[in-house]
């Protein structure tokens, strides 16, 4: 067990180094969401006055959860791309030929993606605080947001890893980039549910990323709500299970076809 944890940690560290050393993997996680946050906050700040908009201190406070959601989704996608690059260049063969349980290879990648999620959560909380956004529920609320973002990054990374293992192609995983944005825009990450129109609203109401976005946003803009938190955790658990099942199947397939 301890040996497996060492392997997961070592592979996670490699994954983090790989992301920081490859600017094209880092840019979507930090640069794009930060720019979008700046543009949206600067350009659509008066949206908070619309009827139906939840009571917030300011638009930046509302948008922090959206920026974190975008960042973590792209961290998961970047993790999948990096994993597919490993497959393409044969690096995963080095890992598959080692006497380790093969699920540790996926877990190592997910540990790295979770660390990027943690970095993303801290980055956007710091930006929010720096530009005057309050964390309504204080330290406990910030901690909840950080945990949810970190866990969701890992969960999304599981889906990315499954697609990478199944396709073995970085361009296939990279091709999911627009889909990630569609999934986000069809959630309440960037817009309050009450202000969305049909059919987007109907989709967003059942989109698990809406529940996660609300779980992250709730302690930032209001008091901690146990129901929102529970729905967010259940949604994350669902995505984790889906990612692990798909990854396990894809791993078996890869070992079968070589």
């Amino acid at each position: 067990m301890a040996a497996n944890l060492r392997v997961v940690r070592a592979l996670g560290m490699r994954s983090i180094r790989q992301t920081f050393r490859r600017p094209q993997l880092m840019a979507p996680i930090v640069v794009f969401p930060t720019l979008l946050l700046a543009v949206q906050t600067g350009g659509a700040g008066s949206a908070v006055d619309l009827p139906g908009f939840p009571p917030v201190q300011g638009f930046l406070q509302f948008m922090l959860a959206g920026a974190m959601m975008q960042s973590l989704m792209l961290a998961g996608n970047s993790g999948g791309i990096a994993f597919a690059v490993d497959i393409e260049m044969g690096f995963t063969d080095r890992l598959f030929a080692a006497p380790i349980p093969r699920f540790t290879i996926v877990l190592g990648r997910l540990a790295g993606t979770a660390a990027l999620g943690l970095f993303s959560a801290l980055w956007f909380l710091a930006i929010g605080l720096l530009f005057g956004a309050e964390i309504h529920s204080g330290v406990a609320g910030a901690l909840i947001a950080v945990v949810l973002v970190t866990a969701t990054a890992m969960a999304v990374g599981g889906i990315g890893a499954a697609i990478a293992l199944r396709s073995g192609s970085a361009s296939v995983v990279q091709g999911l980039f627009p889909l990630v944005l569609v999934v986000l825009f069809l959630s309440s990450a960037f817009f309050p549910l009450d202000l969305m129109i049909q059919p987007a609203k109907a989709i967003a109401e059942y989109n698990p990323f809406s529940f996660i976005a609300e779980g992250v946003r709730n302690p930032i803009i209001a008091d901690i709500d146990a129901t929102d938190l529970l729905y967010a955790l259940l949604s994350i658990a669902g995505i984790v299970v889906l990612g692990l099942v798909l990854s396990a199947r894809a791993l078996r397939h890869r070992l079968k076809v070589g």
Partner: protein
Amino acid sequence: MRAIVVEGLERAFGEVKAVQGVDLEVGEGEIYGFLGPNGAGKTTTMRMLTTLLLPTGGRATVAGHDVVGEPRAVRASIGVALQEAALDPLMTGRELIRLQATLQGLPTAEGRRRADDLLERVDLVAAADRRVGSYSGGMKRRLDLAAALVHEPRVLFLDEPTTGLDPVSRKTIWEEVRELNDEGTTVFLTTQYLEEADQLADNVGIIDGGRIVAEGTPESLKAEIGNPHIQLQIAEGSISEAEEVCGRIGKLLPPTDARTVLVEVANGAADIPRTVRALDEAGIGVESLELVRPTLDDVFVAKTGYHLEKENEAEQDAVEA
């Protein structure tokens, strides 16, 4: 004691049978050269032996462990350096070997010590903290080899370790392989270079079309082809007279051109003096004389019907075009 035992190993990809009933045995402490052109089934066989690919038929044991039933025990006993030097260009050489040590379950301090020793062994100390992407082809292969050795494996698999390397880098890898073998490591080496198999291997298996077509020591395989022959370039005198003289010494072989006589001799170099004397006595001038021994390429031609190196050159030309 056998390090590798393969019985009827098969691998099909849909309708394509890449490996068709391969049988081979590799003794402990032996260097086994697995020789064949691209697409012959060498890499597929190696991937099955290293547990990277499941066989669709037959069985194989490596270091006494079944590759399907006990894959982790196999993986703990082997070191693998893959054809395309599967290295992360963003890692440094030192990071890669330390990671490999962790993957092999070495404690941190032990892994660091082994990494330092191995970097010194393959002469990469100065480049150890540079990213692998900046390494030359030869440096990458040496690093890959070092990573494969981090846990001192019983059996080392090298998939075309010198393909694409310059002659100096190739010789460096050969020396390292010999040294490892002298230390007791069994080496299973795939190659498409005849010279590499001839220089390094104790035993050679020739694979073509997914089947082993010949197996044995390089010398025994060459001996199967026949005796060495003397190749004479005639300067003066009648070629038919030269053939008559040489025919008394050994068996005449079909000539390659109008001024050449080829004669197979039973005693090798010992037959040269009497050949020279006989030609001299007959007044036949000789421009050049050479004793030609059978090569592995002759073996390859005899077993497959085509030249391996010409095949490789044609493929290389196609790639470059």
